[in-house]
């Protein structure tokens, strides 16, 4: 079963704008990760934030984590057409062997 939910389900923005995606989850986690998927195929790992971290940056990506609200957000700044993809959050739970993925946000960046 899937752990989290993401919103919005779909997001369409102009190139150069910022894109924000949100993820909510249900249980205690060790870390939360964000993945990107193009055309419904392989996932690419973007960033990992540990449960004791509140914010993390990587290039144009900024991730926040609020464990009290069981939520995370992914911000992509200065978006490009090449950022068009689906973005998934995935949680690593204590005692579980697998990642639990959210339902994903489909981002479209219009050139």
């Amino acid at each position, binding site marked *: 079963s899937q752990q989290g939910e993401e919103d919005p389900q779909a997001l369409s923005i102009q190139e150069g704008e910022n894109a924000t995606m949100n993820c909510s989850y249900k249980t205690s986690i060790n870390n939360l990760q964000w993945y990107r998927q193009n055309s419904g195929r392989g996932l690419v790992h973007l960033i990992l934030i540990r449960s004791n971290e509140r914010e993390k940056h990587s290039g144009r990506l900024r991730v926040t984590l609020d464990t009290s609200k069981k939520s995370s957000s992914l911000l992509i700044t200065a978006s490009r057409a090449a950022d068009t993809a689906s973005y998934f959050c995935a949680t690593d739970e204590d005692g579980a062997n*697998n990642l639990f993925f959210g339902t994903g946000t489909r981002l479209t960046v219009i050139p």
Partner: protein
Amino acid sequence: GAGVSQTPSNKVTEKGKYVELRCDPISGHTALYWYRQSLGQGPEFLIYFQGTGAADDSGLPNDRFFAVRPEGSVSTLKIQRTERGDSAVYLCASSFQHKNIQYFGAGTRLSVL
């Protein structure tokens, strides 16, 4: 290649047939995972291997699904008596050690007619 390789990339079969899906993980990665992704959903866990053994197969939906990793490297996911509901993208991932970052292959799109 340096990444996780999955073959075939697409597989079309008829209801009731047997299929095998192959995953070649990154060299040296001890942990291997299979996930299944239906249209519009996130990947869902099927099975996890540590070395040659299936450490957790709690995600396999029923006994028609089976997976092996006999030499601790390549893994094969086997589906017997396929049903139309088995149609999905089957993703394989590997990690250097369990709980490390998982690297995914491009997946096999299975279509059961």
